[in-house]
């Protein structure tokens, strides 16, 4: 069934264009006084929502033991093949037998897909909200076990970007940290 669409016949005022022009000017003027959405990056930082996939961390139990059992599920799941684990016997007596002697992540290869945290049976590896960890050398972007545990200390309580003294130690993550 064909529907007949009546085309809009411009009125005199439409053909004069002036009211339309005024309307357009009003729109831009409204935006002129609107709140600006720019985030002035180094001074203010975007606070990512929960579930953001940024820098990795290695979780610990409340008593300070590493959760990771070096099962290598994460490195098997990793599509970029950036997680390298060397397992060893756990130094602690109770429970877990395995323990990562080395736990290295090549951040240059990582694609931040989050498969590792999904694969982890112990909820040991997690992606945090930290996004600005650029560095000057490639070596500085190879993060090891101590680095990953350090990220855990930084992010375990609050969102890294909305912590009380945010911005003051914004350089905490650069070069010498990893």
């Amino acid at each position, binding site marked *: 069934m064909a529907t007949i669409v009546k085309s809009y016949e411009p009125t005199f005022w439409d053909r004069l264009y*002036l009211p339309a*022009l005024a309307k*357009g*000017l009003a*729109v*831009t*003027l409204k*935006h*002129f006084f*609107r*709140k*600006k*959405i*720019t985030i*002035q990056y180094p001074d203010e930082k975007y606070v990512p929502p929960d579930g953001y996939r940024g820098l990795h961390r290695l979780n610990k139990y409340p008593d300070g033991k590493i959760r990771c059992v070096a099962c290598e599920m994460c490195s098997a799941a990793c599509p970029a093949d950036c997680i390298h684990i060397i397992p060893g016997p756990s130094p602690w007596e109770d429970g877990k037998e395995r323990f990562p002697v080395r736990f290295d992540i090549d951040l240059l290869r990582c694609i931040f897909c989050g498969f590792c945290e999904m694969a982890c049976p112990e909820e040991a590896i997690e992606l945090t909200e930290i996004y600005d960890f650029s560095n000057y050398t490639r070596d500085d972007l190879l993060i090891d076990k101590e680095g990953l545990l350090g990220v855990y200390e930084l992010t375990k309580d609050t969102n890294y970007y909305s912590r009380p003294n945010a911005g003051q130690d914004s350089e905490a993550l650069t070069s010498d940290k990893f």
Partner: protein
Amino acid sequence: MDFLGFVIICVKVLVVFSATMLTVLMMVYAERRVSAFMQGRLGPNRVGPQGLLQPIADGIKFLMKEDIIPAEVNKPIYLLAPAMLLIPALMTFAVIPFGSTITLFGREVPLQVADLNVGILYILALTSIGVYGLVLAGWASNSKYSLIGGLRSSAQLISYELAMGLSVVSVILLAGSLKLNVIVEDQQGYLLSWNVFKQPVAFLIFLVAVYAETNRLPFDLTEAEQELVGGYHTEYSSMKFAMFFTAEYANMVTAAALTVTLFFGGWDVPLLNETSMGALGAILSVLSFILKTAFFLFLFIWVRWTFPRFRYDQLMKLGWKVMLPLALINIFVTGGYLTLTSLR
């Protein structure tokens, strides 16, 4: 001419020139800042307080850049073109009265560099001379983008010059003089004596024509980035490019000042007799002139970030089939009205 008069004129020239250049600098900053505000951004705010020193940083950048003269350009004309555009742009402001008279050293000094008795024609003549800079820059660059930009500008400016000139004619009819000072004095008094209210049609035609004459959006076909790279100044770099830029903004300043002079009472403050108030009146008049001009400069930017660019055939159609007949009818009506009222 005596020595004191000479000194006063020199000072006036210096003041007007530096004020124009300063406004140009401010406009470069304002353009970026206002456009950013209208797009929900902040714009340049790092150099100096609120980024106010940004144009100076830009200027230094232009000076430090490599001055490239492409091979195969027509060198003399290529070098001449920016100056041919900039000089008329800076000369135009000479006849615009920017305030009432002040008394200095016991003599009346009108706040205007030169009170030509063909003032308005002088401005029209100089704006029409400015085309050469664009056209020759386009031709001498030996680049197709530049050439198309130059061709477009010549046709566009001639088309809109007609409408602009004819819309001014009706204002001249009302004032009975080509002197800009007389046109301003004619609009003295209460608010409704401004020419916008007497000649709204002429004002609209003039405003549109001015945007076309200064190559501003929605009529910036001569430098339409999306199609012509940079239009006539595609091949220019460094300070020569900055000269084109300066000329464009100087033209805008003059155009805004001219709009104020012709249609918004110039330095007139409504309901106030500035000439009888001495120094205070002069200061008030200059302030009102600056404020009005600033509004029209803002309007230039405002319009630029609101309306899309015209197509070339639309531009020509608007100029020849709408603006020109409308301006002619307006002159006819104004002339008829004036004749009828003078008969009675």
